[in-house]
């Protein structure tokens, strides 16, 4: 018998149809994956089951949980279900916890509310579940506040809250998307263990096919609010009956064509980083002793040659982004030197940096945050043109913008639009157009595709590859995603706790990692092909 059964569920907010005739069932102890790209209605499905929808949302159809009609239940009934029989874990661990309450209070709160237990008893149970999710009291007392924990630790607290009362159903909405691969693997292991321990049903929502394949017994694929395919994980992914499933699978494994690979040592380096370190002031512990600095980047050296694509991989907080900021001369190294085309850029004044800035551009992770929403595309893409020796006239400027837009696959008519008129993938194209308009020699890309859906990601990777082949732009790709590193780079540098611990040709390093940090990254990285093979064995 099903624990949760969703039948013919449709949902609309105002005049917009969000979900259409969704069917989904979960049995006790079963893991069901809900896969889809952003806007496909995954989260809305979850929120409908929790009845935590926005005010104007109207749902029709039937949701039965443990014999209870969810859509017909009163708010009081829902309150007794939420957090007791149904737990939910959210995507963004950094903001999912109340910053002004201790983790003990937040875990114990639900326990006290549902069981009417006293404070001491509830705290005792909170202690047990926190210990279970890997936050033992000796190191993480209940009196800790969320800001004293890292992202992975906070996600464990959120899981502890959701699982404190051993729910029959756990809904996990992109529980690992904001975490690096090593943390992701740990959190997924934890969820898997919890499922088998108490025969909990798990609805795992993710855009990452590899993650879902590793976890789920069955999967449901959503597209534009409709189920396109559903069934056993192994069968669905091996047969790929539906074309959309095939598209998704192909896109997640996509490797762009780059016939010209670039081997190190064949040219004079474009970028040289020599013994660079960066200290941040630490927290002062005493009024009379100076604070001990925190070393974010520790004696790093690297080179990038013209037209070479180098990936800098590492876990979150390893110092990748700090290093990138120093290369871009947005931050000053505490020690060491950075040379671009043979010229030192460290310690130079802004006017002297102009030529270097022109030849070195950047693409950031978040295509939403990196544009001023009140400016038109023409102005946004033309931004770096002030770095040119001679400022182009208006007509010339329009030509250059049109050309750059054409190179990233957008049309000249897009010039007069505003950023909000574009989708996430198109916005990332805009930021690439902005980066290449000055014809730079080097583009530093900080997680340029990690906020994008797989199909869009494949297109953007193709675009990066094409620009590298056609224009000979060198890349420094900063990423924690080994799939991106493998697809895009000639050489890979593995960074760990501020140091570069391994470097070499991408295939060599990723197939045969020698350092512990690299091995951990490779082992934790979800791989669709491997996951499907394992599923095939298990499910026959």
């Amino acid at each position, binding site marked *: 018998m099903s624990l949760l059964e969703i039948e013919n569920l449709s949902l609309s907010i105002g005049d917009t149809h969000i979900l259409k005739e969704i069917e989904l069932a979960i049995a006790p102890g079963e893991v069901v994956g809900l896969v889809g790209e952003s806007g496909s209605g995954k989260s809305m499905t979850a929120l409908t089951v*929790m009845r*935590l929808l926005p005010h104007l949302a109207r749902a029709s159809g039937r949701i039965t949980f443990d014999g209870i009609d969810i859509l017909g239940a009163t*708010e*009081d009934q829902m*309150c*007794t*279900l*939420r*957090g*007791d029989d149904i*737990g*939910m874990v*959210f995507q*963004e661990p950094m*903001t*999912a*916890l*109340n*910053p*002004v*309450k*201790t983790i003990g209070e*937040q875990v114990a*709160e*639900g326990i006290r*509310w*549902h069981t009417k237990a006293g404070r001491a008893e509830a705290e005792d149970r909170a202690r047990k579940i926190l210990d279970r999710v890997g936050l033992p009291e000796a190191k993480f007392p209940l009196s800790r*506040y969320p*800001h*004293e924990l890292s992202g992975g630790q906070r996600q464990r607290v*959120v899981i502890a*809250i*959701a699982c404190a009362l051993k729910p029959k159903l756990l809904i996990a909405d992109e529980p690992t998307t904001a975490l690096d691969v090593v943390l992701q693997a740990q959190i997924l292991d934890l969820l898997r263990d919890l499922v088998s321990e108490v025969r909990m049903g798990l609805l795992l929502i993710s855009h990452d096919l590899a993650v879902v394949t590793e976890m789920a017994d069955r999967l449901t694929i959503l597209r534009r609010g409709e189920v396109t395919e559903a069934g056993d994980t192994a069968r669905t992914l091996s047969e790929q009956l539906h074309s959309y499933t095939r598209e998704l699978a192909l896109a997640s494994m996509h490797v762009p064509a780059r016939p010209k690979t670039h081997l190190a040592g064949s040219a004079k380096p474009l970028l040289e980083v020599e013994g660079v370190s960066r200290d941040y002031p630490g*927290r*002062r*512990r005493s*009024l009379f002793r100076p604070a001990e600095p925190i070393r974010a980047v520790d004696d790093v050296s690297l080179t990038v040659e013209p037209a070479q694509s180098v990936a800098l991989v590492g876990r979150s907080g390893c110092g990748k982004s700090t290093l990138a900021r120093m290369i871009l001369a947005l931050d000053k190294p505490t020690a060491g030197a950075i040379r671009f085309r043979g010229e030192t850029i460290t310690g130079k004044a802004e006017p002297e940096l102009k030529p270097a800035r022109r030849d070195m551009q950047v693409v950031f992770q978040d295509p939403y945050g990196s544009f001023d929403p009140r400016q038109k595309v023409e102005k946004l893409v033309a931004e770096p043109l002030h770095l040119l020796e001679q400022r182009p006239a208006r007509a010339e400027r329009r030509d250059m913008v049109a050309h750059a837009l054409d190179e990233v696959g957008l049309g000249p008519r897009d010039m007069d639009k505003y950023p909000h008129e574009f989708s996430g993938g198109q916005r990332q194209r805009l930021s690439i157009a902005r980066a290449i308009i000055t014809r730079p020699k080097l583009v530093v890309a900080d997680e340029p595709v990690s906020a994008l859906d797989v199909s869009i990601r494949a297109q953007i990777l193709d675009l990066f590859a094409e620009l590298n082949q056609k224009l000979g732009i060198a890349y420094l790709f900063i990423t924690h995603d080994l799939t991106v590193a493998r697809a895009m780079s000639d050489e890979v540098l593995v960074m760990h706790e501020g140091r570069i611990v391994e470097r070499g040709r991408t295939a060599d390093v990723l197939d045969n990692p020698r350092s512990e940090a690299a091995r951990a990254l490779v082992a934790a990285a979800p791989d669709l092909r491997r996951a499907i093979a394992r599923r095939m064995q298990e499910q026959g």
Partner: protein
Amino acid sequence: MTYLLKRLIIAAVTLVLASMVVFAVMEILPGDPARLMLGFNASTDQVELLRNQMGLNAPLVLRYLHWAGGLLSLDFGRSYTYSVPVIDLVRERVVVSLPLALIALALSTAIAIPVGLFSASRQGRAGDTLAMGAAQLGVAVPNFWFALMLIYLFAVWLRLVPAGGFPGWSAGIWPAVKSLLLPAVALALPQAAILARVARSALIEVLNEDYIRTARAKGLPYRAVLWRHALRNAMIPVLTILGLQFAFLLAGTIIIENVFYLPGLGRLVFQAITQRDLIVVESVVMLLVAAVIAVNLLVDFSYAVVDPRLRGRQ
């Protein structure tokens, strides 16, 4: 700990700087206190003698240090017009003004927070629109006009409270509080209106946070989420405004005390200004400055109580 220490140092520095500014402004103002005390018929020699006695001929820095040192030991000097120590005048008046300001502050908080909660939880619905419309009116109406309306309604028409004056605390607590009630309401309402709007928008912002959803997913009913999770997080902007409002409240007492004939600091300073009793003005202004700084220090401390992130590691 460092946070609190830092705030304390900043408050002390602010106080010193403010005292310099107050002293400097009084120096610049025209009018010779010695001449004022002796009257216009006094001879130049007499005036000069008194100036020497009062120490007015000493160098500026010395005079400042003398004055500031006096402030520290609560010796504010003697009033030119009343010829009594300023501290005695202040002591008499502060027992009226301080309770008035505190009652007004308490009232404004007590009105604003529930209204803010009510409006935020009904965002965009009729109740919210009505409450915020009333708040808009409260912001727009000047408090002295409000005071007149209150006097007319509660004192003249309903005869519940006196229309003005202050019987003194010796007359008993209730009669004294009763005579402060109307002025406190008149002071509090415009402040409450502003505060309610701040509380509402702070709450609405907080209610969109992810942790509110986490709390609801725990099974807490909406009301519990509002009180337990949203309110405390929304307190930071509310406390900031509260601190700023205290200064306006003190300024407001000058007007309100005149409307209600209350023998408070506001009336004292008002009279002192018209009589050019500069030493009283100086002292009272410093006292008000100190009060505002103290309240803002208190606000800074309460930030740390509300938000553990400001406390630093233990």
